[in-house]
């Protein structure tokens, strides 16, 4: 073995990784929050809308799902400002992109959940005289949430990992921090080992938290 592991240089620059991780989480939380609002609103609209609206929402979902995220990131950061007179920072640009991207995936999660709510429950809501809005809030959404939580957790974790793409437009999140250390120390194995461990641990903690939420909801079934 010609390569001896040496983590000293990694620890010296660990603030780049730690700060990067915090920024990754921040990007994920903001984007997922916006994406959830987009996804929920469009899913609710979709299930009660006519053909035209459905086609438009489906087109948005299909477009996002068939274009690599990295291309969307380039498009929004480099493409849009050259065409229209808009200026935004790289992190803002990425949050914008990931929000629209996660929205498309979450529409699908929420839509299938809404459609999986048994008809009988909606009939029961109608039979006691609930208005459409009351049926949505008090009958359909609670049941939908219970049905979609596992799929929702998976999507959230996946979106958290997607924040690593922000490194291509120099947003100093975790992967970017790893690249910086690599370029400056050439400890490629050590830095990516540590970074991998950091994604892994964070992912597990997120998953554990989400499973706790799921269990709470399942217990209340």
């Amino acid at each position: 073995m010609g390569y001896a592991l040496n983590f000293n240089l990694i620890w010296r620059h660990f603030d780049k990784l730690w700060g990067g991780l915090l920024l990754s989480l921040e990007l994920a939380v903001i984007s997922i929050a916006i994406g959830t609002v987009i996804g929920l609103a469009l899913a609710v609209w979709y299930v009660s809308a006519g053909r035209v609206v459905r086609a438009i929402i489906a087109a948005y979902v299909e477009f996002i799902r068939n274009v690599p995220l990295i291309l969307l990131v380039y498009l929004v950061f480099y493409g849009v400002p050259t065409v229209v007179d808009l200026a935004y920072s790289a992190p803002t640009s990425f949050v914008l992109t990931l929000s629209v991207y996660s929205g498309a995936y979450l529409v699908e999660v929420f839509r299938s959940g809404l459609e999986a709510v048994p008809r009988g429950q909606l009939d029961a809501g109608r039979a006691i005289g609930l208005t459409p809005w009351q049926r949505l809030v008090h009958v359909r959404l609670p049941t939908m949430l219970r049905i979609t939580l596992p799929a929702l957790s998976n999507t959230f974790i996946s979106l958290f990992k997607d924040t690593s793409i922000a490194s291509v437009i120099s947003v100093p999140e975790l992967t970017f921090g790893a690249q910086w250390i690599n370029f400056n120390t050439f400890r490629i194995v050590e830095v990516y080992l540590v970074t991998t461990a950091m994604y892994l641990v964070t992912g597990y903690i997120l998953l554990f938290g989400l499973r706790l939420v799921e269990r709470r909801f399942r217990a209340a079934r």
Partner: protein
Amino acid sequence: MSDATNASPALLDVHDVSKAFGAVEVLRSVSLQVKRGEVVTVIGPSGSGKTTLLRCVNFLESYDSGSIRIDGKEVGYREAGTRRRRSERDLAAMRAETGMVFQSFNLFPHLTAAGNIMLGLTKVRGKSQTEARQIAEHWLGRVGLAHKADSLPAELSGGQQQRVGIARAVAMEPKILLLDEITSALDPELVGEVLAVVRSLAEDGMTMLMVTHEMAFARDASSRIVFMADGGVSAVGPPKEILAAETSNERLRTFLARFRASHF
């Protein structure tokens, strides 16, 4: 078409109602009346339109022609003879006047037994939580489930769930209760407890329109029985008359004969 000034004394007046799903006619000019305090049972072979008729009464299903009135008020459409649907808000208000109990219970799975009953009381009737809780507990007591107020539907047996379903419907003090094959999804040993609740409601004078396959119960509890076949009313009369083996109505005779063969 009778107008509002010529209101019939019937609480529920179904007049000449027809409905088709595509090319299939599920209701063919059905007419029937239910007077206040009456228990009317609809029997008939499956596919004869019984459930569809019930679901038209609270407008869970629309109908193509005819009129359905409760207490003289047209149910789903703005006026008799037009097909202009009421607004969703109006429909909701109309539906609150009818209670419905379903074959598959259809309790809200995220709410407790009491919560299921309280939802309509608070959101539709505008009662306070405290008041709604009292009403829910009262009705849970009536159906023998006072001790299950805080249980979730998943923690209850089928018979218990259905009794909560009944309590949820009657707690709204509906003018008429619609019971759609409410014992069909139950294990045989659980049927009795549910029918006992229905019987006690009937004794209290609750107006009911029910679809059932429990012939013995229909015979004992009904004021009148309606026999439906192929989407139309084939016979109406007191239980003794309808369930008599020597009826001259051939379809009814066949139905009863098949029914006896499979149930006794």
